[in-house]
């Protein structure tokens, strides 16, 4: 393989960092959710890269499971966002502070 493993890992790390920046800075709950998906994707890239470079299929099975969990998360997370919008008429995380002490 021509591309060194480092390149994949650094790309994955930068994508994960962009996802973290999105989660802590944005105020729209749906965009925060999409940034979490971006972080999951970055981790998947690491798993696939290691799986390929070590010749072990385990990493791809892990990615498969991450995708399953992401699908479940999409269903429940978006249902929560819809329920939130129905009661508060907003998905702005700054306006949702009922649990704040």
């Amino acid at each position, binding site marked *: *393989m*021509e*591309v*060194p*493993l*480092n*390149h*994949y890992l650094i*790309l994955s*790390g930068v994508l*994960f*960092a*962009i*996802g*973290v*920046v*999105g989660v*802590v*800075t*944005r*105020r*729209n709950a*749906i*965009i925060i959710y*999409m*940034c979490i*998906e*971006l972080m999951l994707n970055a981790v*998947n*890239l690491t798993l*696939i*890269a290691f799986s*390929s*470079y070590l*010749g072990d*299929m385990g990493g*791809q*099975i892990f*990615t*498969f*499971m991450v*995708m*399953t*969990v*992401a*699908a*479940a998360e*999409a*269903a*429940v997370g*978006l*249902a*929560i*966002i*819809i*329920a939130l*919008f129905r009661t508060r008429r907003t*998905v702005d*995380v*700054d306006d949702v502070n009922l649990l704040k002490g």
Partner: protein
Amino acid sequence: MELLIFYGLGLLALFAAAAMIMVRQPVTSALLLILNMFCLSGLYAMLGAHLIAILQLLVYAGAIMVLVLFVIMLLNLREKKGIVSKHQIALQTAGVAVFGVFMAVIAARLHTSQLPNPKAVTASFGTVGAVGRVLFTDYILPFEIASILLLAAIVGAVILAKSKV
């Protein structure tokens, strides 16, 4: 050649991710995330994970992002007050800074550390047959538990999104 494709896809993925957290419209953001997922799918195909590359397009870019776009259009949101959350701005900045330093340290370490040499993978590595054989023998229990997880998620989503339980 392979390096060139890697840089093309990688830079496009980075651009899509960076633009995704900066644009104002949620729909544009979702479309940029789909672009990012297409690039990652190309990288998976380059790494020989053919099944995962197709699943990335079908499950992530297809099913999950369509659901997200559906919700964005259903709620018909408009950004009125600016995109950046105003609460605890110091905490956010500190968090981002700490995380940036953390990633920089990891990148610096990766640059010098000895990583495993690539093993020669066979042509069938990562195909549907090869992944399926491992999934249905060694990893059969996680596979079955995933079905229970999905069932729980379906029930939970229906109960949460219903107006009256």
